[in-house]
C-alpha cells in the first residue's frame, strides 16, 4: 500500500509522462498477423525495435507453448525460433513463425491463449543465449539445455544486466476458427507533418477501428521530449488526438503509436520526424 501511495503521488507530476520517453535499447511492440491462429499454420510476426544510441545489437524470437513440461515447440518441425541483427536507431523485424500442431486437440472446444511469443533484444555480447540460438535453423529441434532456458526466461534474466537488454513477450490465441480475430486499424486522421518544432508542443490525430474491448487503449512513445499522456482509452470509430512536446536537441525524433484492442490484437504506426527551430 505504501508503494501505491508513493506511486500515485508521483503520477500526474510534470508536463510529460516519463513512460512515453524511449531512451534505451528496447522492444517497443510486436504484432502477430493474424492475432488468432490455427495450430499447425504460420503467421507473420513484426517486432519494432528502438536503439537510440545505435548500439551493435542482436535479437532472437521464439514461440513457446508451455503446459507444464516445457515448450511444445522444442521438438522442432515448425518455425519457432529466429535470429537477426537489427541495425540503426530503429528497425522493424518481420518473419514468419508457426504454431505447433500439438495444440489441435486442445483447441477443439474453443480458443486457447497459452502460446507465448518472446523477443530478446541485446547489445551484442551481453546475452549468451542469443549465441546459442544463432546457429540453429528456424525449424530445428532445440537442444535440451536451450529448451529449458527458453521455457523459463525469468531464471536467466536475473543474471543479465538491465542496460543493453530488452526482453518482451505477448500471448497468442490459437483456435480452429475460420473467422479469427483480426488486428485493429490504426491510421493517421490528418496529414502527418514532416517536421516538428524543437521544444514545442505538437498534436497528432488518429482514427481507430476494429473489434475492441472496453480495455482498448492507444499508447505513444517518442525518443525525445515526451507525450502528455502515456495511454488513452479508445473505442471503435474514435478519432484520437495525442499531444506531445518535441525535444530541444537533436536533428530527428522517432514516434511510435501502438493500438491494443484489449483482445490480443495490436497495430503500430511509426514515423521519424525532423526537428526544426
Amino acid at each position, binding site marked *: 500500500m505504501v*508503494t501505491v501511495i508513493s506511486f*500515485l503521488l508521483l503520477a500526474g507530476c510534470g508536463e510529460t509522462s516519463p513512460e512515453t520517453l524511449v531512451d534505451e535499447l*528496447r522492444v517497443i511492440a510486436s504484432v502477430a498477423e493474424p492475432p488468432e491462429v490455427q495450430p499447425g499454420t504460420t503467421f507473420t510476426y513484426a517486432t519494432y525495435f528502438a536503439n537510440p544510441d545505435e548500439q551493435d545489437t542482436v535479437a532472437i524470437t521464439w514461440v513457446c507453448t508451455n503446459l507444464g513440461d516445457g515448450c511444445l515447440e522444442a521438438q522442432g518441425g515448425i518455425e519457432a525460433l529466429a535470429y537477426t541483427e537489427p541495425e540503426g536507431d530503429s528497425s522493424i523485424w518481420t518473419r514468419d513463425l508457426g504454431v505447433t500442431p500439438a495444440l489441435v486437440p486442445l483447441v477443439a472446444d474453443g480458443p486457447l*491463449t497459452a502460446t507465448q511469443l518472446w523477443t530478446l533484444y541485446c547489445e551484442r555480447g551481453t546475452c549468451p543465449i542469443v549465441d546459442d540460438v544463432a546457429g540453429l535453423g528456424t525449424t530445428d529441434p532445440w537442444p535440451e539445455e536451450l529448451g529449458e532456458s527458453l521455457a523459463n526466461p525469468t531464471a536467466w534474466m536475473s543474471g543479465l544486466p538491465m542496460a543493453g537488454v530488452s*526482453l518482451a513477450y505477448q*500471448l497468442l490465441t490459437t483456435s480452429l476458427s475460420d473467422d479469427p480475430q483480426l488486428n485493429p486499424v490504426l491510421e493517421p486522421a490528418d496529414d502527418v507533418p514532416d517536421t516538428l518544432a524543437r521544444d514545442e508542443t505538437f498534436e497528432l490525430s488518429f482514427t481507430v477501428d476494429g473489434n475492441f474491448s472496453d480495455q482498448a487503449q492507444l*499508447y505513444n512513445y517518442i525518443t525525445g521530449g515526451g507525450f502528455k499522456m502515456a495511454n488513452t482509452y479508445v473505442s471503435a470509430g474514435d478519432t484520437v488526438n495525442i499531444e506531445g512536446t518535441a525535444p530541444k536537441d537533436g536533428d530527428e525524433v522517432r514516434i511510435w503509436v501502438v493500438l491494443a484492442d484489449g483482445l490480443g490484437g495490436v497495430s503500430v504506426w511509426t514515423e521519424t520526424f525532423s526537428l526544426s527551430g
Partner: protein
Amino acid sequence: MFLVFLFCALALADQPAESPPREDIDQTKSDDIEPITKALDDSPSFSPPVPSYIPPPVYPPEALAQGLGGSVLMAIDVAADGSVVGVEVLEADRADFGEAALINARSFVFLPATLADGTTVDARIEYRTIFKAEQAAAISVEGRIREAGPRIPLKQANVVAVNPDGVRVIAQTDDDGRFRMAGLSPGPWIASVTAAGHVTDTVEFEVEDGKVSSISVYLVRDEVRTGQTADLELTIIAAAPETEVTERTLTAEEVRYLPGSGGDVVKVVQNLPGIARSPLGTGNLRIRGTAPEDSLYFLDGGQIPIVFHFAGLTTVLASDLLEEVAYLPGSYTVRYGRALGGLVDLRTERALPERSNGYASVDVFQAALFVQQRIGKRDALTVTARRSYADAVLNPILNKGDLTVQAPRYYDSQLRWSRKLDAGWSDVMFLLSDDRFRFLGQGEDEVVLAGFATQFQKLRWLTSRNFGDGLSLDTSVVLGPEKKFFESDGSSEAWEKEMRVATRIELKQEPTADRSIGWILGTDPNFNRSSFLYDIARPPERTVSSSRTAPRESGANNIWQPSAFGELSLRAGQFKFLPGLRTDAQVTNAATVFSLDPRVRVLWEVGSRTTIKGGAGRHSQAPTARQLSPSSDGNPDLSAELSYQYSLGIKHVVTEWFNVDLTGFYHHLTDLISGREDRFFFYSGPPPAGPFDTAPYANDGTGRTFGMELLANVNTDTTTGFLSATVGRSDRVKRPGAERTLFEYDQPLILNALVSQKLPKRWRIGARVRYGSGNPYTPVTNRIFNHDRREFIPVYGERDSARLPPFFSLDIRIDKDYVFKKWTLTTYLDLQNATYSKNVENQGYSYDYREEEPTLSPPPLPAFGLRGEW
C-alpha cells in the same frame, strides 16, 4: 521531675478550668509537636498554666448520633508563651473521642506557668475533655482540602483558622480530606491550609450563628514531588525470557511524557529490547526476528486480533484502562501458547477509582474522551471513545489528479462496568475498533482502486476470586467478531471473518513464606468460526510462466482449540524453579493437530541486587485452517510448527534508580510450513516480492533466531529514561537442501534511547533516538515487458538478498502542565524525525525498474496536542 496539673473540661463552649493536683507522667509527644524535656522545679511558688482559650471539640458524628458521651485524658505540653506544643492521649473512652480531643487540644491557649519571680516557664499538664452529647457544640465550618488538578483528597492537612481577635483554632483533615470546626465565634475568619508537598494557601470565610460555613481549598502540588504520587502506577512487564519477567514500573505520568509514545503505554513497548521497528508504522510487532503473524495479542489473557490502529499511532484500547502491559518475547510461561513468536497481554485494572475522573484530549491525529464514574462503594462505570480525523487533514493533501484518497481513519470505544467483590473482582467490558482507508478513482463511479479495513467488536467478562492463603481462581471470556477486508481495482475482493470465543480459567496457589511450593492449573480453550473469500482478479498476462489465473477461494471452518497447562513454582534457598507443561489441540473440518510443550525456567538470586535467569522450552503453532484444507489446495497432513527456545540472562540493580538487564537467547525453529507463497494473504508489511515458493504446503522449513538484549533503566524523581539494545540474527532454510537465507524481518541491530526530564514551572522535555538496521528485501535485477498489458514485470534476484539502509530518527517532545483547581491542562509538542532523516521505509522502483525510488520517512511533522484532565 515534671510539674503536672490536671484539668477537666466539658465539651462545651469556653469555660475556665480548675487547677489540678500534681502528678508525674511519662513524657511522650503527639505526631507533630516537639516534646518538652525541660525539668521544672517543684516549688510551692510555681503557678501552673491557666486556660485562656479552650474551644469546644468537634463531636464525633457517630457518637453524637447515638447520644454517647465520654471523656479523654490528655497530657499537654504548654510552652512558656502559653501555646500548646505537645499533646498525648493518656486514656479515652472511645477512639473517636481521643482523636477529636487530640486535634482540639492543639487549639488551646494558656496563660503560661510562672515562677515566683514571674518568669514564665514550660509546663506539662494533664487535661480531661468530657464529651456530653446534649451539650455538643454546633459545627461552625466544614470543608474539604484537595490537590489542585487531579482533585485528590489530602489527608492530614492542617487548617488553622484565626479571627481578628487573634483566636486560633486548629483542625486536621481525615482520610477523605475533610475537616470540621466547632464553636467558632461569629464573624470573619482566615484559614491557612498546609499539607506536606503542597503550597500553602489561605481562604477567608464568615461564621454565622446557626449556620455552617463551607469551604473548599485546592492546594497546588509543590514542583518537587515529595508526597503521595498523584497518578496510579502502571506496570510494564518487559523483556525477560524467564518467566519471572523483568518488571519495569513506570508511573502513568512518566509514560505519558515519553517521546514517541503519545501517552500510549503500549507504544512504549515498541522501544523495548527484542522488538524490531515496523516500516512506516504499520503498527505490528516483530518480536525476536519472527513474523508479526507469529506473535499474539491478548486482553486479560483472551486473544484479540490487533493491538494498534493503522500506522501504529495508538493502541486500540485506552491506556487508562490498563494496569499492566505484559511483553513476553520468548521462553515464557505455559499459560500462553499457540505462537512461535512473542506476545503482548493488555491487563486491565482491577481496582475501583478513588474518585470519579476523566480527560478529553485533542491532537493532530485524533480526539479522545475518557470518563470514569464511581458508583457507590463497590462499582464503577468507565466510558471511552476515540476517533481519528487525520483523513480530514490529509485527504486534501493526498488528493491529486485522477485520484480521490481517503486517508486512514480509525475509531475505538470501550464501555466497562466494574465491581469489587468481598474477596475478588468482576467486570464486564464491551470494546470495538475500526480502521480503514481507501483510494478511489475520480468521477461519478468512484471505483475503489484499493481499500483495506480491519474491525472487531468484543465483549469481555472477567472475574477473580481469592480464597485466602494465596489460593485464587481467575476466569475470563473474550468473544466477538473480527473482520479484515481488502478490495482492489473494482474487481478484486478478499476478506477474512472470525467469530472468536477465547476463554481462560486459572486456579492458582501462590507460594508464601511458609510454603515454598506454588502452582497454576489452567486451560485457555478457544473456538473460532472462520470464513474467508479471496477473489483476486489476476488476468493471465500477469504471470509470465503460466496462463493460470489466481483461483477464487472461499470457505468456512469451525476451529476448536482446547488446551491445558500446569506449572509449579519451587523455591529452594536462592533458587526458584518453574517447570511447566502445556498441551494444545486444534480441531478443524480438515484435520486435528496436537502439540505438547514442556518448559522450565530457573531464577537464582545472587545477593540482594543480582538475579540470574534462564529458561528452556518448546513452543508450538498449529497450521491455519487454510493451510490444512484440501478445498483450498492445503495439506491436511501438516503438523504444528515448533520453536525450541533457550535463554540466559542477568539483572543487576546498580542503585535504587539504575538497573541493568542483559539477556541472551537462541530459538531453533523446525517444521516450518513452506509453500504456496503466490497465494493472496493479508500481509502485515510491504507487499511480498518474488521469487515465490509455489510448491504445495509442507513442514519443510527450519530456521533460527539468536541474539542479545540489553535494557538499562534510569528512574529518579526528575529523570526517566532507558537504553535498549538488541543484536541478533534471524534466518531460514525453506526447503531441505535449500540455502540458508536471511529472514525478511531480520534486523541485526536495534537501538533505542529515551529520556524525559522534568524542568521547573511544570515544563518537561524528552528525546528519543532510534537506530536500526534496515530490513532485508528482494531486489529487482531485471524486467520483462508485457506487450499485452503494455507494462514492465520485475525479475527478482535472490529472496531477501539485499538490505535497506539503516534507520535513524530523533524525536523530541516538550510538555507544559497548567494546574487549575479542579482540572489540569497538559499541552505538548511532539516532533518526530526532527533531523529529517531520509530513512528508506520500503524499496520502490520507477515504472521500468531502471531506477530505485524508495519510499522515505515522512518529513518532520510537529504534532501539537491538548489534554484536559479532571
